[in-house]
């Protein structure tokens, strides 16, 4: 058994277990924490795929900022176990089962079609720490400002709209 398979198995197991823990946890704060662990495990998988930049961003943006914000809101509202136990309706359960199956089908289908990964994992893994050359980041930047300029700018406008919208909604409620 080689090392990278071992790391892959461990990270995947942690990701799956913590994702399940996030779903079945009664306390909201612990759900958020399980999600942090999930994101961390996903970051490890990104490193295995020779994408340390994606891994770092995953941890900074999701684990480090967005989930801290989640935690802030949950703690501010002081959601307790009782508040989290909402009534569950049959319709809700049915709809969630359908959407889970649909999403799972799409994921399996896409993975099935794409076939084997383009780069053998062992080769890419050896290329990460030893070389220390930051090839992927300038490449990413160049792609963002040439081929993907329009989607990139459209996304930033979308985010800006969301921020302005959120501000407007919160202001209207308080005044």
């Amino acid at each position: 058994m080689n090392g990278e398979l071992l790391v892959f198995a461990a990270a995947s197991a942690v990701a799956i277990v913590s994702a399940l823990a996030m779903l079945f946890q009664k306390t909201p704060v612990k759900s958020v924490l399980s999600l942090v662990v999930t994101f961390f495990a996903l970051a490890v998988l990104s490193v295995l795929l020779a994408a340390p930049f994606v891994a770092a961003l995953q941890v900074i943006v999701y684990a480090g900022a967005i989930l801290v914000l989640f935690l802030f809101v949950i703690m501010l509202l002081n959601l307790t176990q009782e508040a989290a136990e909402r009534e569950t309706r049959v319709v809700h359960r049915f709809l969630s089962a359908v959407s889970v199956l649909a999403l799972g089908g799409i994921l399996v289908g896409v993975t099935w079609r794409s076939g084997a990964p383009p780069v053998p994992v062992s080769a890419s893994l050896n290329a990460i720490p030893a070389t220390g050359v930051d090839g992927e980041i300038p490449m990413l930047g160049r792609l963002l400002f040439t081929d993907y300029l329009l989607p990139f700018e459209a996304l930033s406008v979308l985010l800006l709209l969301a921020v302005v919208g959120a501000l407007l909604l919160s202001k209207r409620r308080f005044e």
Partner: protein
Amino acid sequence: MDPLLFDAIAAIAKILFVWAVVLAALLPNLVLLERRGAALIQDRPGPNRVGPFGLFQALADVVKMFMKEDMVPIYADRLLYNLAPLIMMIPALTTFAVIPFGSQIPLTIGGVTHTIPLIIADVNVGILYVFALTSLGVYGIVLAGWSSNDKFSLMGGIRSSAQIISYELAMGIAATGVFLAAGSLRLPAVVEYQQTHLWNCIPQLLGCIIFVVSAFAETNRLPFDLAEAEAELVAGFHTEYSAFKFGMFFMGEYANLVAASALIVTLYFGGWSLPGLALTGLWGGIASIGIFAVKTFCFIWLFIWVRWTLPRFRYDQLMALGWKAFLPLSLLNLLWTGWLVLAGGGKF
């Protein structure tokens, strides 16, 4: 010797060296330094009874931490309560992995000369790795606050989570200026760049100030220790902690302090280099470690000095400073650096 085996042994030796210096030599004595420094600033003797000049005070403090009764509140969430001090400590200690603490040391074994770079892991996302880890450190404080199941602790935790988001943004954008100038995210590349150019603190003075001040907020030190705020929240997030777990928070704060100082030195003050000095060979390597240590120590002292000089900010003042002053100013710094790089064709 097999080069792979040699690399592994060298890496382990470097990790042991860095942790020994930080954990065993630096952390206990920083507590003493802080207390004596506070006394100096407040014009009183300070702890000077244990050993010559109070030098064994650190030892006495550690023994006291171990001997005290370890109390856990009945309504605390035991798992998270016990985990929180660790979460605060570990990110601070792993940050040192990507900080270059010296140039390099040549070592000849069996006629073959190996060059050991004095950095534990030269990963190509260096700065981002540091930000990723330090952004996780806040969970220690937030969880300590929540799991204690106590109003004061919870207030401290909530404040900390909001504070960290506000300051991390400005800090990250300020640091973007540094790697824009160096053209790389690797911290050794940032140091190399500063060997041939001005130190980053001169062309990017604004970014440097923002980064240093944000580091105070990031490490929860006065004037931004709103999570602790003993005048209003008893002891904030660690109100319910005692004995060794409290000691872990204490050590975690100083580990963060050392990490932040080392990072400031690396990003803005030339790292282990000094202008006009070519630090090569064995003695050059050792001298570079010394230079890095002295520079880092200067910033540790700055942190202590400020703590005993400035009063605490109010919470709304802290948020206003982060969002309304530092965020726009850090963007301005980025614009200025971009202009410098463009005007100098990447060389200024």
